[in-house]
Protein backbone atom coordinates (compact mmCIF):
# COMPACT_ATOMS: atom_id res chain seq x y z
CA UNK A 1 0.00 0.00 0.00
CA UNK A 2 1.19 3.52 -0.76
CA UNK A 3 1.39 6.31 1.80
CA UNK A 4 -1.47 8.07 -0.06
CA UNK A 5 -3.73 5.10 0.69
CA UNK A 6 -2.89 5.33 4.39
CA UNK A 7 -3.63 9.07 4.30
CA UNK A 8 -7.26 8.37 3.44
CA UNK A 9 -7.40 5.77 6.23
CA UNK A 10 -6.52 8.59 8.65
CA UNK A 11 -10.15 9.74 8.34
CA UNK A 12 -11.57 6.32 9.12
CA UNK A 13 -9.19 6.02 12.06
CA UNK A 14 -10.11 9.46 13.43
CA UNK A 15 -13.85 8.82 13.07
CA UNK A 16 -13.57 5.27 14.44
CA UNK A 17 -14.92 3.83 11.19
CA UNK A 18 -12.15 1.34 10.37
CA UNK A 19 -12.57 -2.41 10.66
CA UNK A 20 -10.28 -4.13 13.20
CA UNK A 21 -7.87 -5.39 10.55
CA UNK A 22 -7.64 -1.98 8.82
CA UNK A 23 -7.07 -0.33 12.19
CA UNK A 24 -4.25 -2.76 13.05
CA UNK A 25 -2.54 -2.25 9.66
CA UNK A 26 -2.88 1.53 9.98
CA UNK A 27 -1.45 1.60 13.51
CA UNK A 28 1.51 -0.47 12.30
CA UNK A 29 2.08 2.06 9.52
CA UNK A 30 1.99 4.93 12.02
CA UNK A 31 4.93 3.40 13.90
CA UNK A 32 7.11 3.70 10.80
CA UNK A 33 5.73 6.85 9.06
CA UNK A 34 6.28 10.13 10.88
CA UNK A 35 4.55 12.11 8.08
CA UNK A 36 1.27 10.21 8.53
CA UNK A 37 1.58 10.40 12.34
CA UNK A 38 2.02 14.18 12.11
CA UNK A 39 -0.89 14.53 9.72
CA UNK A 40 -3.07 12.43 12.04
CA UNK A 41 -2.35 14.81 14.91
CA UNK A 42 -3.14 17.86 12.77
CA UNK A 43 -6.43 16.32 11.62
CA UNK A 44 -7.25 15.34 15.21
CA UNK A 45 -7.02 19.01 16.25
CA UNK A 46 -9.09 20.10 13.26
CA UNK A 47 -11.76 17.49 14.04
CA UNK A 48 -11.86 18.66 17.64
CA UNK A 49 -12.52 22.32 16.74
CA UNK A 50 -14.98 21.37 13.98
CA UNK A 51 -16.90 19.10 16.39
CA UNK A 52 -17.29 22.04 18.75
CA UNK A 53 -19.27 24.02 16.14
CA UNK A 54 -22.97 23.49 16.86
CA UNK A 55 -25.80 25.18 15.01
CA UNK A 56 -28.48 27.15 16.82
CA UNK A 57 -31.73 25.26 17.27
CA UNK A 58 -34.60 27.37 15.86
CA UNK A 59 -37.47 28.46 18.09
CA UNK A 60 -40.26 25.92 18.69
CA UNK A 61 -42.73 27.97 16.64
CA UNK A 62 -40.60 27.28 13.50
CA UNK A 63 -41.19 23.54 13.91
CA UNK A 64 -44.84 24.06 14.83
CA UNK A 65 -45.44 26.11 11.66
CA UNK A 66 -43.20 24.01 9.42
CA UNK A 67 -45.84 21.61 8.06
CA UNK A 68 -48.38 24.45 7.76
CA UNK A 69 -45.98 26.35 5.49
CA UNK A 70 -45.53 23.32 3.24
CA UNK A 71 -49.25 22.54 3.14
CA UNK A 72 -50.13 26.12 2.17
CA UNK A 73 -47.56 26.16 -0.62
CA UNK A 74 -48.79 22.81 -2.00
CA UNK A 75 -52.38 24.09 -1.88
CA UNK A 76 -51.47 27.40 -3.53
CA UNK A 77 -49.48 25.57 -6.22
CA UNK A 78 -52.59 23.54 -7.03
CA UNK A 79 -54.69 26.73 -7.07
CA UNK A 80 -52.28 28.44 -9.49
CA UNK A 81 -52.25 25.39 -11.79
CA UNK A 82 -56.06 25.26 -12.00
CA UNK A 83 -56.22 29.05 -12.47
CA UNK A 84 -53.57 29.02 -15.22
CA UNK A 85 -55.16 26.15 -17.16
CA UNK A 86 -58.60 27.82 -16.98
CA UNK A 87 -57.12 31.20 -18.04
CA UNK A 88 -55.29 29.63 -21.02
CA UNK A 89 -58.46 27.79 -22.12
CA UNK A 90 -60.46 31.03 -21.87
CA UNK A 91 -57.89 32.97 -23.89
CA UNK A 92 -57.80 30.24 -26.60
CA UNK A 93 -61.61 30.14 -26.74
CA UNK A 94 -61.84 33.96 -26.91
CA UNK A 95 -59.15 34.04 -29.60
CA UNK A 96 -60.96 31.50 -31.78
CA UNK A 97 -64.24 33.34 -31.40
CA UNK A 98 -62.61 36.66 -32.36
CA UNK A 99 -60.92 35.10 -35.41
CA UNK A 100 -64.18 33.46 -36.45
CA UNK A 101 -65.93 36.86 -36.25
CA UNK A 102 -63.22 38.55 -38.34
CA UNK A 103 -63.24 35.82 -41.03
CA UNK A 104 -67.04 35.89 -41.32
CA UNK A 105 -67.23 39.68 -41.35
CA UNK A 106 -67.60 40.81 -45.05
CA UNK A 107 -66.55 44.37 -44.15
CA UNK A 108 -63.00 43.24 -43.20
CA UNK A 109 -60.51 43.43 -46.08
CA UNK A 110 -59.47 40.08 -47.62
CA UNK A 111 -55.77 40.91 -47.20
CA UNK A 112 -56.25 41.26 -43.43
CA UNK A 113 -57.99 37.86 -43.31
CA UNK A 114 -55.12 36.25 -45.26
CA UNK A 115 -52.49 37.83 -42.92
CA UNK A 116 -54.47 36.62 -39.90
CA UNK A 117 -54.64 33.05 -41.27
CA UNK A 118 -50.90 33.17 -42.06
CA UNK A 119 -50.25 34.27 -38.46
CA UNK A 120 -52.25 31.33 -37.12
CA UNK A 121 -50.52 28.91 -39.54
CA UNK A 122 -47.09 30.22 -38.38
CA UNK A 123 -48.03 29.76 -34.72
CA UNK A 124 -49.25 26.21 -35.45
CA UNK A 125 -45.94 25.31 -37.18
CA UNK A 126 -43.95 26.75 -34.23
CA UNK A 127 -46.09 24.84 -31.73
CA UNK A 128 -45.73 21.51 -33.60
CA UNK A 129 -41.97 22.05 -33.98
CA UNK A 130 -41.43 22.74 -30.26
CA UNK A 131 -43.69 19.86 -29.28
CA UNK A 132 -41.80 17.47 -31.58
CA UNK A 133 -38.43 18.64 -30.19
CA UNK A 134 -39.62 18.19 -26.60
CA UNK A 135 -40.93 14.69 -27.37
CA UNK A 136 -37.65 13.79 -29.08
CA UNK A 137 -35.57 14.86 -26.05
CA UNK A 138 -37.99 13.25 -23.63
CA UNK A 139 -37.62 9.92 -25.44
CA UNK A 140 -33.82 10.25 -25.44
CA UNK A 141 -33.61 11.26 -21.76
CA UNK A 142 -31.70 8.45 -20.08
CA UNK A 143 -32.81 9.51 -16.61
CA UNK A 144 -36.53 9.93 -17.12
CA UNK A 145 -37.33 6.51 -15.65
CA UNK A 146 -34.77 6.61 -12.89
CA UNK A 147 -36.42 5.39 -9.72
CA UNK A 148 -34.61 4.95 -6.45
Amino acid at each position, binding site marked *: MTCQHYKELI*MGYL*DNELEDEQKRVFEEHLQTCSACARELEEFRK*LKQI*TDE*VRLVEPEDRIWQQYWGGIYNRIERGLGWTVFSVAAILLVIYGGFKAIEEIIKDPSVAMILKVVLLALIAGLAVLFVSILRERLYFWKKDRYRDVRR
Partner: protein
Amino acid sequence: MESLCQDEVTVMERCRRGSKEAFEAIVRRYMKDAYFIALGLVGNREDALDLSQEAFILTYRNMKRFNPTRPFFPWFYQILRNLCFNHSRKRTDERRLVEQFDGRQVEREAGNNFTPDVVAERNEVKDRVWKAIGRLDNKHREVIVLRHFRSLSYEQIAQNLFCSKGTVMSRLYYARKRLKEILDSEKGGQQE
Protein backbone atom coordinates in the same frame (compact mmCIF):
# COMPACT_ATOMS: atom_id res chain seq x y z
CA MET B 1 -32.32 8.28 8.96
CA GLU B 2 -32.45 4.74 10.34
CA SER B 3 -33.15 1.65 8.27
CA LEU B 4 -36.51 1.12 6.69
CA CYS B 5 -39.23 -0.37 8.91
CA GLN B 6 -42.58 -1.79 7.83
CA ASP B 7 -44.42 1.26 9.18
CA GLU B 8 -42.41 3.55 6.94
CA VAL B 9 -43.13 1.39 3.87
CA THR B 10 -46.86 1.66 4.65
CA VAL B 11 -46.63 5.43 5.15
CA MET B 12 -44.72 5.79 1.85
CA GLU B 13 -47.37 3.75 0.03
CA ARG B 14 -50.06 6.06 1.41
CA CYS B 15 -47.99 9.10 0.35
CA ARG B 16 -47.76 7.75 -3.18
CA ARG B 17 -51.55 7.50 -3.26
CA GLY B 18 -51.67 11.23 -2.37
CA SER B 19 -52.40 11.08 1.38
CA LYS B 20 -51.49 14.45 2.91
CA GLU B 21 -51.71 13.00 6.45
CA ALA B 22 -49.09 10.38 5.58
CA PHE B 23 -46.90 13.03 3.99
CA GLU B 24 -47.25 15.20 7.09
CA ALA B 25 -45.87 12.29 9.15
CA ILE B 26 -42.87 12.06 6.79
CA VAL B 27 -42.27 15.82 6.98
CA ARG B 28 -42.43 15.81 10.78
CA ARG B 29 -39.98 12.94 10.93
CA TYR B 30 -37.36 14.46 8.63
CA MET B 31 -37.86 18.23 8.94
CA LYS B 32 -34.99 18.79 11.38
CA ASP B 33 -32.54 16.79 9.28
CA ALA B 34 -33.67 18.68 6.17
CA TYR B 35 -33.37 22.09 7.83
CA PHE B 36 -29.95 21.53 9.40
CA ILE B 37 -28.48 19.98 6.25
CA ALA B 38 -29.78 22.91 4.18
CA LEU B 39 -28.36 25.30 6.78
CA GLY B 40 -24.98 23.59 6.48
CA LEU B 41 -25.10 23.79 2.70
CA VAL B 42 -26.35 27.36 2.21
CA GLY B 43 -25.29 29.02 5.45
CA ASN B 44 -28.24 31.11 6.62
CA ARG B 45 -31.51 30.44 8.40
CA GLU B 46 -34.06 32.01 6.05
CA ASP B 47 -32.70 30.26 2.95
CA ALA B 48 -32.34 26.94 4.83
CA LEU B 49 -35.95 27.05 5.99
CA ASP B 50 -37.25 28.01 2.55
CA LEU B 51 -35.15 25.45 0.64
CA SER B 52 -35.88 22.58 3.02
CA GLN B 53 -39.64 23.26 2.69
CA GLU B 54 -39.29 23.57 -1.08
CA ALA B 55 -37.55 20.17 -1.14
CA PHE B 56 -40.54 18.58 0.65
CA ILE B 57 -42.94 20.22 -1.82
CA LEU B 58 -40.97 18.86 -4.80
CA THR B 59 -40.86 15.47 -3.09
CA TYR B 60 -44.63 15.48 -2.67
CA ARG B 61 -45.15 16.34 -6.34
CA ASN B 62 -42.75 13.58 -7.46
CA MET B 63 -43.87 10.93 -4.99
CA LYS B 64 -45.14 8.71 -7.82
CA ARG B 65 -41.55 8.27 -8.98
CA PHE B 66 -40.39 7.00 -5.60
CA ASN B 67 -39.99 3.27 -4.97
CA PRO B 68 -41.51 2.78 -1.47
CA THR B 69 -39.45 -0.34 -0.76
CA ARG B 70 -36.23 1.74 -0.88
CA PRO B 71 -35.12 4.11 1.91
CA PHE B 72 -36.78 7.50 1.66
CA PHE B 73 -34.04 9.79 2.94
CA PRO B 74 -31.34 9.24 0.25
CA TRP B 75 -33.95 9.97 -2.43
CA PHE B 76 -35.15 13.08 -0.60
CA TYR B 77 -31.55 14.14 0.04
CA GLN B 78 -30.82 14.25 -3.72
CA ILE B 79 -33.69 16.73 -4.18
CA LEU B 80 -32.58 18.83 -1.20
CA ARG B 81 -28.90 19.00 -2.19
CA ASN B 82 -29.73 19.91 -5.80
CA LEU B 83 -31.91 22.78 -4.59
CA CYS B 84 -29.24 23.99 -2.18
CA PHE B 85 -26.42 23.74 -4.73
CA ASN B 86 -28.46 25.59 -7.37
CA HIS B 87 -29.25 28.26 -4.82
CA SER B 88 -25.55 28.67 -3.87
CA ARG B 89 -24.61 28.84 -7.56
CA LYS B 90 -27.19 31.57 -8.19
CA ARG B 91 -25.96 33.59 -5.18
CA THR B 92 -22.37 33.26 -6.40
CA ASP B 93 -23.34 34.33 -9.94
CA GLU B 94 -25.25 37.33 -8.57
CA ARG B 95 -22.24 38.38 -6.52
CA ARG B 96 -19.94 37.98 -9.55
CA LEU B 97 -22.26 40.25 -11.51
CA VAL B 98 -22.17 42.86 -8.76
CA GLU B 99 -18.38 42.55 -8.68
CA GLN B 100 -18.18 43.17 -12.44
CA PHE B 101 -20.19 46.35 -12.05
CA ASP B 102 -18.66 47.95 -8.99
CA GLY B 103 -15.27 46.23 -8.89
CA ARG B 104 -15.58 44.88 -5.34
CA GLN B 105 -13.74 41.69 -4.38
CA VAL B 106 -16.12 38.75 -3.97
CA GLU B 107 -15.31 35.80 -1.73
CA ARG B 108 -15.16 32.43 -3.45
CA GLU B 109 -18.19 30.13 -3.45
CA ALA B 110 -20.84 30.61 -0.80
CA GLY B 111 -18.40 31.92 1.82
CA ASN B 112 -19.92 35.30 2.55
CA ASN B 113 -23.42 33.82 2.82
CA PHE B 114 -22.30 31.90 5.91
CA THR B 115 -23.41 34.20 8.69
CA PRO B 116 -21.95 33.25 12.10
CA ASP B 117 -25.18 34.13 13.94
CA VAL B 118 -26.34 30.54 13.33
CA VAL B 119 -23.45 29.15 15.42
CA ALA B 120 -24.38 28.21 19.00
CA GLU B 121 -22.25 29.48 21.92
CA ARG B 122 -20.16 31.54 19.56
CA ASN B 123 -16.49 32.33 19.93
CA GLU B 124 -13.82 33.46 17.49
CA VAL B 125 -12.60 29.96 16.61
CA LYS B 126 -16.09 28.60 15.94
CA ASP B 127 -16.94 31.63 13.77
CA ARG B 128 -13.77 31.10 11.74
CA VAL B 129 -14.48 27.38 11.26
CA TRP B 130 -18.05 28.12 10.15
CA LYS B 131 -16.90 30.75 7.63
CA ALA B 132 -14.21 28.36 6.38
CA ILE B 133 -16.84 25.62 5.86
CA GLY B 134 -18.72 28.15 3.75
CA ARG B 135 -15.69 28.57 1.52
CA LEU B 136 -15.39 24.85 0.73
CA ASP B 137 -16.76 23.70 -2.60
CA ASN B 138 -20.15 21.96 -2.54
CA LYS B 139 -18.82 18.40 -2.78
CA HIS B 140 -16.51 18.88 0.19
CA ARG B 141 -18.93 20.96 2.24
CA GLU B 142 -21.64 18.32 2.08
CA VAL B 143 -19.50 15.52 3.57
CA ILE B 144 -18.42 17.84 6.39
CA VAL B 145 -22.06 18.80 7.04
CA LEU B 146 -23.32 15.21 7.01
CA ARG B 147 -20.51 14.00 9.28
CA HIS B 148 -20.19 16.88 11.74
CA PHE B 149 -23.65 18.43 11.89
CA ARG B 150 -25.82 15.33 11.45
CA SER B 151 -23.31 12.80 12.88
CA LEU B 152 -23.95 10.29 10.10
CA SER B 153 -21.79 7.17 9.87
CA TYR B 154 -19.73 6.58 6.73
CA GLU B 155 -22.26 3.91 5.74
CA GLN B 156 -25.14 6.40 5.98
CA ILE B 157 -23.21 9.10 4.12
CA ALA B 158 -22.38 6.60 1.36
CA GLN B 159 -26.07 5.65 1.13
CA ASN B 160 -27.11 9.31 0.79
CA LEU B 161 -24.46 10.13 -1.78
CA PHE B 162 -24.90 6.87 -3.73
CA CYS B 163 -21.19 6.09 -3.46
CA SER B 164 -18.91 3.65 -1.60
CA LYS B 165 -17.54 4.02 1.94
CA GLY B 166 -14.08 4.34 0.40
CA THR B 167 -15.21 7.35 -1.61
CA VAL B 168 -16.66 8.92 1.55
CA MET B 169 -13.35 8.42 3.35
CA SER B 170 -11.40 9.92 0.45
CA ARG B 171 -13.78 12.87 0.10
CA LEU B 172 -13.59 13.60 3.82
CA TYR B 173 -9.80 13.53 3.64
CA TYR B 174 -9.70 16.17 0.89
CA ALA B 175 -12.51 18.20 2.50
CA ARG B 176 -10.74 18.38 5.86
CA LYS B 177 -7.42 19.05 4.16
CA ARG B 178 -8.95 22.00 2.30
CA LEU B 179 -10.67 23.21 5.47
CA LYS B 180 -7.32 23.16 7.25
CA GLU B 181 -5.68 25.06 4.39
CA ILE B 182 -8.36 27.78 4.54
CA LEU B 183 -8.04 28.10 8.32
CA ASP B 184 -4.23 28.19 8.13
CA SER B 185 -4.26 30.82 5.38
CA GLU B 186 -6.62 33.01 7.41
CA LYS B 187 -4.49 32.61 10.52
CA GLY B 188 -1.41 33.55 8.47
CA GLY B 189 -3.27 36.55 7.04
CA GLN B 190 -4.28 37.75 10.49
CA GLN B 191 -0.73 37.46 11.86
CA GLU B 192 0.76 39.49 8.99
